[in-house]
């Protein structure tokens, strides 16, 4: 098992290097470089920047060096000092911007997924067992609507209803009065009271799809002989369903964990913007629009890195759940 994990990590290293090169090339693609742009910006706002200062800036950012040297400078700073460069839009180091937001982002994404799973997995199993029943038809109908309605639209509707009917100001992570205060018990409770809405909203977005996946997988598994064998042992129908076909039907959900971490940064973006959350996604998104080069590079790199980590994570989870993967077995059930 440990060997397996180690092997997966080793294999991820070249992937990550490739991602970093690509990220760097992408952020260099737009016309005009970031330093010239910054000098422009400073001049526009009335700050005097003379040639000497401009040259100093250019040297500071290594703009006079060839591209591969700039890449090495960039990646070395990231690896050795965890320094992603400076964000011109936020006017602080990129690392700081991201770290401020990381905790919330992670908490929201994790709980949103837990919400999705606890709602969708039992429903998916249930409708598969009761295939073609009224419940199945109703759930199927709702999930199709759920798949068609974008999550951010749902977020807007709920915010509207919450505000007009219940006088709840949904959105943000903190109330106005706690925003600038240091951490306290009250601020924590305030955070919790704001957190449930994005969690449910972001979670709901995944429910429909997860129900569909779970239902399809269950229908496949329910047909298999081991289910009849389990019944023939004398297990109750509930025990049979939970201990047998569900154990295998859950596998695609485990591989879905692969998307959990990158999803932190991009999956819930629309909802996060609509709900005005101080999470990492919207911050990075705006950097892409503003040619905030280091911020954007960090965005691409971190997303790629998290994808690789998540892929390892879901492979490990799968291997824990399915010994055929662990032992390199090939044939299906």
């Amino acid at each position, binding site marked *: 098992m440990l060997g397996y994990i180690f092997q997966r990590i080793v294999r991820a290293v070249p992937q990550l290097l490739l991602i970093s090169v690509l990220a760097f090339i992408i952020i260099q693609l737009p016309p005009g470089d970031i330093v010239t742009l910054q000098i422009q910006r400073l001049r526009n706002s009335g700050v005097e920047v003379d040639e000497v200062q401009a040259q100093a800036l250019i040297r500071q950012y290594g703009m006079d060096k060839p591209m591969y040297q700039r890449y090495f400078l960039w990646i070395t700073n990231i690896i050795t000092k965890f320094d992603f460069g400076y964000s011109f839009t936020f006017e602080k180091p990129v690392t700081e911007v991201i770290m401020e937001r990381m905790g919330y982002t992670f908490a929201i994404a994790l709980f949103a997924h837990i919400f999705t799973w606890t709602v969708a997995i039992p429903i998916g199993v249930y409708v598969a067992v009761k295939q073609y029943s009224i419940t199945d038809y109703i759930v199927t109908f709702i999930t199709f609507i759920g798949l068609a309605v974008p999550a951010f639209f749902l977020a807007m509707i709920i915010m509207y209803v919450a505000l007009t009917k219940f006088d709840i100001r949904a959105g943000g992570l903190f109330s106005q009065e706690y925003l600038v205060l240091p951490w306290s018990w009250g601020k924590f409770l305030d955070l919790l009271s704001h957190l449930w809405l994005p969690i449910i909203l972001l979670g709901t977005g995944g429910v429909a799809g997860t129900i569909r996946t779970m239902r399809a997988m269950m229908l496949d598994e329910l047909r298999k*002989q081991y289910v*009849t064998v389990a019944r*023939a*042992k*004398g297990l109750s129908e509930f025990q049979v369903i939970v201990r047998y076909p569900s154990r*295998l039907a859950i596998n695609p959900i485990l591989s879905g964990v692969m998307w959990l971490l990158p999803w932190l940064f991009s999956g819930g973006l629309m909802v996060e913007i609509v709900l005005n959350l101080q999470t990492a996604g919207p911050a990075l998104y705006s950097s892409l629009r503003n040619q905030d080069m280091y911020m954007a590079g960090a965005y691409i790199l971190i997303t790629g890195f998290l994808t690789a980590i998540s892929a390892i994570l879901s492979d490990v989870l799968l291997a824990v*759940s399915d010994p055929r993967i662990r*032992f390199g*077995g090939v044939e299906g059930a």
Partner: protein
Amino acid sequence: MSTDTVLAEIKNLRTYFYLAEGVVRAVDGVDLVIKSGRTLGVVGESGCGKSITALSLMQLVPSPGRIEGGEITYYRTIHKTASSTTADAINITRLKPDSREMRSIRGNQISMVFQEPMAAMLPVRTVGAQIMEAIMLHQQVSKEEARKRAIEILSRVKLPNADRIVDTYPFQLSGGMRQRAVIAMALSCNPNLLIADEPTTALDVTTEAQILDLMRELQREFDMAIMYITHNLGVIAEMADEVAVMYMGKVVEQTDVTSIFRKPLHPYTQALLRSIPQLDDVMARAAGQKKRLETIKGMVPDPYSVLKGCSFHPRCPQYIEGVCNQITPEVIEVDPNHIVRCHLYASHAAQAQTNKDATP
């Protein structure tokens, strides 16, 4: 050792499937008797309702199938000592499939081995865990005790290194070993009746022979009845004490294993016997003579059809116009313990009737 006590009796069992295309009468009036400690072989072409009969006996008919009528009387063991067994009669068709009472019989008193050893176990749980589950379900024992019993039963089906196999996953075993493990699982609670539904069909011949040997041995050891389902008359010859021949949801002939081969009555049974290669055929071919193996003419009619008269009449070489396609044949006892559903033996029925009338 083999007594003639009846363990289970199926009477006029009907199990139908309700599909969009029509009703499939998978089992349409089956009568069978299973005796304690003996082997009943059930033979017939694929699709004739063997598996569904067996599944009905365990109340495991898959939807959209349903037991429509008939009775399955099972003599349930209530109390067992070394010298005597107390039993009560229970009508299985009356029990709800998921009821506690039915579940206490399933896997405990009646258990089943299926055709596909590769698919019979969940690939993600160990062999031992899946055997222990049945033991812990039916016998109030601790986990350690259940594990001990699982290892013990694995060694009784002649698996080498049972104490290692208990911790392996099903996909790590070969087909033959896996079928042994599945048999071990079925035997783990000491059943009175083991239903074996083509347990060797998916195995190669050598492995098949080993499994058949094993099952005969275990039957003696465990003193259990076996309902052995197969389409292979060769296997019947090796395994069965009694034989029931099924055709389109009905038992068309039932007798002891010697009579089925020496004196087959039903034209379908006769045709089945002719379709297995005999030594004569092999010799003839070796001598360069052209001799083709006989096959039963025609095809099994589609399962939705309800044929008037005898369901075998379109394929029957001894078909009597106006009788076989009009009148459903009744069960006729041609010899003691030899029954057949065929109009050719109608005179025996009349004979039996007059004999009965004559006795005061």
